[in-house]
């Protein structure tokens, strides 16, 4: 008797545990399905994004509004900083339990779309669940891969130099103008360092940021990648790293240690903690930088990336700051489309989100928002307007293997700034790395 009940008990334990083991494969369908079964007809969507605290607050507020307008849908937010966001997402996709709605980046869009991880949105454009009639054509194109729409632009932005205008005014230094050059930038940075004394630098050293280097490459008439291969020349690299090396020597840029101590999070940047007056960032980040500023009375302003003297073309460009995509295996594709539609087309939602993710892609919304925008947001509208007049087209998305190349570029800049390697040696090594990294992923 004892034996029988024992075996029964054992097999029960086994059955329960094994079914728990095997549920991984169909978790995605099951998880959402179970939720909808549990609370009447309530549908649960998961949405993930990266960003600063400002973005988290605004997005949660917008999602609350969405839930009010769609009482049958609950949105579960999953947010984090930029660091690690795509590590996590790739794991979730591999485990087939990615969020239903995913904030996507230009650099990763092709990778994810081509590997079948993203929802084809064309069907929902046709069914009018998603309205893109008032969206900029160039941004629709940017969100399409192989002619299919996989991502809707959440905002338009452009790279720029953020500067603490209060520091400029206090030191009596003229604020940068739209036609400033790298030489002007260097002179200003050195001047600030000299005036402020030890421990304060002109600008954050961003020599390890690949997409800022790209702008110089574009000014030199090249592109960073061509046919999936690294296409910038040794001279481009040398010009870039030499310029930053000189800036580090005269205090124009932060020394290696200070640079290494900062991360991508706004709160850790030298301009925020009060050790530098300038930083390179994206126009939509102005507000987050302003909020992260140690001295809240200081004012952050933005200017275009400096020009090269005798540049072949303007390096500055307009970019979809980020996209929103659906997950290919979502159990509720129609609701996903509704949420995406809400995020980019709903006037009330636009009022909440403002320009934190960039200038809205919907031209009607843009007009409406600009009227009532506070001073700092107006500055961003003006900045984007300036850039849209004086810029060149964005280059195609980065090839597969970019993230590894990006790391290698960053290491190269550190090798130089920490004096572990001469500029020439570091460049030779980087070129070899680039060849093996990108060659492999072809």
């Amino acid at each position, binding site marked *: 008797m004892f034996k029988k009940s*024992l075996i029964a*008990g054992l097999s029960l334990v086994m059955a329960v545990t094994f079914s728990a*083991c095997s549920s991984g494969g169909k978790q995605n369908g099951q998880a959402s399905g179970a939720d909808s079964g549990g609370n009447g007809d309530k549908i649960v969507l998961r949405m993930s994004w990266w960003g600063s605290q400002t973005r988290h607050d605004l997005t949660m507020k917008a999602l609350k509004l969405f839930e009010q307008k769609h009482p049958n849908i609950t949105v579960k937010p999953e947010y984090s900083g930029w660091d690690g966001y795509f*590590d996590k997402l790739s794991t979730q*996709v591999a485990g087939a339990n990615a969020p239903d709605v995913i904030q996507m980046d230009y650099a990763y869009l092709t990778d994810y779309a081509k590997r079948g991880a993203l929802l084809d949105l064309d069907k929902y454009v046709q069914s009018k669940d998603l309205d893109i009639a008032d969206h900029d054509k160039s941004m629709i194109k940017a969100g399409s891969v192989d002619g299919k729409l996989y991502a809707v632009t959440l905002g338009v932005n452009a790279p720029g130099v953020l500067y603490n205008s209060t520091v400029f005014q206090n030191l009596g230094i003229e604020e940068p103008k739209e036609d400033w050059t790298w030489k002007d930038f260097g002179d200003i940075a050195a001047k600030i360092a000299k005036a402020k004394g030890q421990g304060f630098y002109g600008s954050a050293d961003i020599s390890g940021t690949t997409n800022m280097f790209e702008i110089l490459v574009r000014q030199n008439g090249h592109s960073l990648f061509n046919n999936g291969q690294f296409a910038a020349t040794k001279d481009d690299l040398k010009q870039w790293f030499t310029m930053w090396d000189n800036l580090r020597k005269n205090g124009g840029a932060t020394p*290696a240690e200070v640079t*290494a*101590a900062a991360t991508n999070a706004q709160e850790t940047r030298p301009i925020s903690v009060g050790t530098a007056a300038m930083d390179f960032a994206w126009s939509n980040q102005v507000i987050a930088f302003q909020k992260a500023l140690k001295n809240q009375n200081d004012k952050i302003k933005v200017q275009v990336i400096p020009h090269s003297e005798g540049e072949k073309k303007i390096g500055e460009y307009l970019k979809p700051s980020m996209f929103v995509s659906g997950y290919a295996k979502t159990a509720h594709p129609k609701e996903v489309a509704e949420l995406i539609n809400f995020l980019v087309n709903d006037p009330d939602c636009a009022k909440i989100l403002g320009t934190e993710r960039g200038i809205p892609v919907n031209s009607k919304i843009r007009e409406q928002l600009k009227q009532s925008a506070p001073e700092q947001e107006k500055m961003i509208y003006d900045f984007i307007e300036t850039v849209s007049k004086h810029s060149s087209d964005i280059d195609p998305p980065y090839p*597969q293997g970019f993230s590894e190349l990006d790391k290698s570029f960053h290491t190269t800049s550190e090798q130089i700034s920490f004096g572990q390697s001469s500029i020439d040696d570091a460049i030779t090594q980087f070129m070899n790395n680039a060849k093996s990294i990108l060659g492999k992923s072809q």
Partner: protein
Amino acid sequence: MNAHYETAAIRPAVAVKKKARRYTQNGVALFFLAPWLIGLICLTLGPMIASLYFSFTDYSVLSAPNWVGLTNYKTMFTSDKLFLISLKVTFLYVLVSVPLKLIFALAVAVLLNKGMKGLGIYRTVYYIPSLLGGSVAIAMLWRKMFGGDGLLNQILHLVGINAPDWVANPKYALYSIVLLSVWQFGSSMIIFLAGLKQIPSEYYEASAVDGASRMRQFFSITIPMLSPVIFFNLVMQIITSFQSFTQAFVISNGTGGPVNSTLMYSLYLYKKGFAFFQMGYASAMAWVLVLLIALFTLLIFRSAKSWVHYEDGGK
């Protein structure tokens, strides 16, 4: 064994009964083992076999794996410079942190073994870092404490020393992680303490009568008597140190920087798999790590004969 079978042949009826009882006993054992057994099969063995397969493929996580044979292993040892750097960083870390940690743990254990009052409290207090140390929060705290204007440098500044940023300088970053690991000496200490209590006090008394100094007693009695415990701690620490990940990940903000100075083997493995979409390569790295750890453990076991003393001769 033979004897058992002989009796079984002579008295079959008893044997059958015994056999049945053995099955019941096995059943009970299996029942209680079930949670662990199922965990082992589903969560450890299954993924391990999968990763062995992936290690021979080109697997980007997002799309299906492609069989490539030994390519991953070849690349690792022939053309991947970062792989060699990560090996170097890890060896350096193990080489410095394990002995330091063991010496520190032993020193504290010897102090606590002096029969002081409130031993229980001290033992608990010293054990706490081991409980907290692996957490992300402590690593964040470390980053703050040893940062450019962190607590340590502010103290040093008071006495007029301008110290570098300990976590953002490639010369020191790894050692700040070593320090974090040494700080978690608690579990080794507890084991040492238990070992110390096992040493009969007669040895010390006898040697004291013979005029041995404290130092002499420590090296001629304590160390040899404690050698099986040292051996155990050494093996355990080496195995865990090779796999160290969290601290380096958090302190370097996931980059293994500055200039790859904290690019631990597991951190590089993680980056390859989850950030660079090369899960096949990462799986191959994981298996190389398994072999490496096995090799080192084997070497230590081999060396044990010459320095580990068992009172019963090791039988």
